[in-house]
């Protein structure tokens, strides 16, 4: 390719290129530089080397936030992935009445602004007046003070997270619709039951989408912020700080404590954790994910 063509090509992609350099590459580089400094926004950065990273080793609040975030991710990701597959399979039932309505009902929560839906959830989980405890009481169960009890706060957050599983469901549903019916017909001839067909045909055939959902849900779980922040803003993480997550601590260090250097280091650690987990998922899924050839 001639130099002129290269220049023309670069010129055509220059809006993206300039945007990437200005708004991604440069901030990334600066963020890494700041992570090696003591920087409080109104003062010039002071070089501290790896001190911010060393501080992470003894920062008990960070350890708490990490513990909570990993626990939340460990519970919410498998649940979300499983529920997405199950709901999508139900929606894929042939001749399901009101199928479009159910699809819409499941997807709609993802369009509701998070703050608005969180306010509604706060009332739903209210121990005295909340609908959830009212429903439980009709079953003879004395519901807990969900958002005030250290033993239940995390469970409440997981349930709120599950409400927004619609996007994963739609992706699974799309994948399900592309599974060749001939496979099910062959399975019928072989006398396979419904459960066997589900695990031997359905799950392998949509496994790339399941992996995609698992990765995006992992990224989302490690960035959880708005819901716990709105609910527990005054208590810094709610009862027993069970609702205090990594991104909240990152936000505190950035905007509340004005410790931009430490916050930058935290952001890099977060990126590395997500990258490592994503890489691990790709590695583990090598033998489990079935990619159809073109």
């Amino acid at each position, binding site marked *: 390719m001639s130099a002129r063509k290269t220049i023309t090509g670069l010129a055509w992609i220059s809006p993206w290129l300039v945007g990437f350099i200005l708004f991604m590459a440069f901030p990334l580089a600066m963020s890494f530089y700041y992570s090696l400094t003591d920087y409080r926004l109104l003062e010039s950065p002071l070089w501290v080397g790896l001190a911010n990273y060393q501080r992470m080793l003894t920062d008990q609040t960070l350890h708490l936030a990490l513990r909570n975030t990993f626990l939340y991710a460990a519970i919410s990701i498998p649940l979300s992935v499983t529920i997405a597959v199950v709901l999508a399979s139900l929606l894929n039932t042939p001749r399901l009445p009101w199928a479009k309505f159910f699809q819409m009902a499941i997807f709609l929560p993802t369009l509701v602004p998070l703050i608005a839906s969180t306010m509604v959830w706060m009332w739903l989980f209210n*121990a005295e007046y909340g609908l959830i405890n009212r429903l439980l009481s009709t079953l003879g169960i004395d519901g807990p003070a969900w958002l005030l009890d250290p033993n239940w706060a995390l469970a409440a957050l997981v349930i709120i997270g599950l409400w927004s599983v619609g996007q994963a469901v739609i992706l699974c549903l799309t994948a399900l619709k592309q599974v060749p019916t001939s496979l099910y017909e062959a399975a019928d001839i072989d006398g396979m039951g419904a459960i066997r067909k589900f695990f031997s045909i359905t799950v392998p055939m949509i496994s790339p989408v399941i992996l995609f959902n698992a990765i995006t849900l992992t990224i989302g779980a490690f960035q959880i912020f708005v819901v716990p922040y709105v609910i527990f803003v005054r208590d810094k993480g709610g009862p*027993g700080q069970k609702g205090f997550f990594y991104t909240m601590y990152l936000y505190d260090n950035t905007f509340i404590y004005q410790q931009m250097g430490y916050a930058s280091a935290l952001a890099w650690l977060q990126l590395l954790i997500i990258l490592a987990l994503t890489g691990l998922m790709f590695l583990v899924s090598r033998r489990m994910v079935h990619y159809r050839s073109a």
Partner: protein
Amino acid sequence: MTLSASAGEITRRTAVGALATAGLGFALFGPRPAKRRDDGRLVLDYWEKWTGLEGRAMQTVVEDFNRSQDRLFVRYFSTAGIDEKAQITIAGGAPPDILGLWNYNLPAFAETNAILPLDELGAEFGVTPSIYSPGMAAATQHKGKFWAAVNTGGTVALYYNKAHFREVGLPDTGPRTIAELDEANRRITRIDNNRITRMGFHHREPGWWVFIWGYPFGASLYDADTNRALLNSPENQAGYDWVQSYPKEFGLTRLNEFRSTFGNYDSPLNPFLAGKLSMVIQGPWLANMINAYAPDLDYGVVPLPVAESLYDPARPIGLVDTDILTIPRGVKHPDASMEFIAYTQRQDITEKLATVHCKGSPLATSSPQFLATHPNRGVRVFDDIAKSPRSFLVPKTRAWIQIRDELIWVFDQSWNMKGDPKDLLARAQTKVQGVLDNFELQSRRRAEGAA
């Protein structure tokens, strides 16, 4: 015309490109001219945190000022997250001309020179610390300099429901000591079917000042002279032991269930207004809610109840938690900003604003009419706290927010009975002292670098 095309020399294209880049940079990042209206009046932008009724009251003050002269025109902007946004705009060189903050912001802004000292500028307009009551004057100063004016006087005291006190046979003069508060709480609290339906006092309502519990026992949180945190003092520990005594006595689950019946602070479901809670620690502004949503509530206001040995009606203990006005670094016309601030400090203006806000006046003296006609029946109590030598501010250190957050953790763990307050405070002390030491170390390094 070609300047030169040979290597190493400037081509016309390069020169034009460089000029264009410089022009663009200047347009985007260069200095901004001061804003003027068509009538020639200098425009000043005033960022304030207030919204709603309080915001409208301040807007009225601004409009009065704009009418009072023809050289300056102040624009009022209600700004959420004002302290965070202000730091960013100041760092970016485009600050508002007048900035309303909370008094706890002052050390962080002052030590980074994000705001201008007002010692000389304020004096030119007659605004000095001496015009304020002692508690408020302390809120305007940091490390020997005067940094801010006070626009309304906020102190914190105990509101109580007189009818509830009378109902259980207690004098309706309110509790003076912690022991009296506890006794009132026991008598007033009602438990039906293992559920609390009414309570005297609940440490989590409103939950805005969970760091103050040691003060009624004589604690202080910080020694500015030695830069030492004092979180694990016996007095502070006594405060958190007191906090923990409630879940121990009434049961954590019952207290949490009861708390979940509380509505928002600024609604008729506020538990104090709704008669669910008989005593609550609050600022003078609560009277606005009472007047709006529960005008028949028979309430009284007393200073924070304290340990028996500390009780002294002439020198009440109470938190000064107030709003301040500052001039950010980088403003074009600090004298114009100060002129507006000085206007807000006039006794008539201050009292007018404080009346609508239901707060006390920050000034050293209040007019008899202000106190006599004030809509908050506890205004004299709030006023006394502001004038008391035992009123206190949050620690004057840049690390205050971190100290506060650690105490939120101590409070939460104590309340949830997840540990002995003594151990929790010891852990918090270690962490907070580390933060303070680090601040000091970095400040020293910066000073050495600058030298």
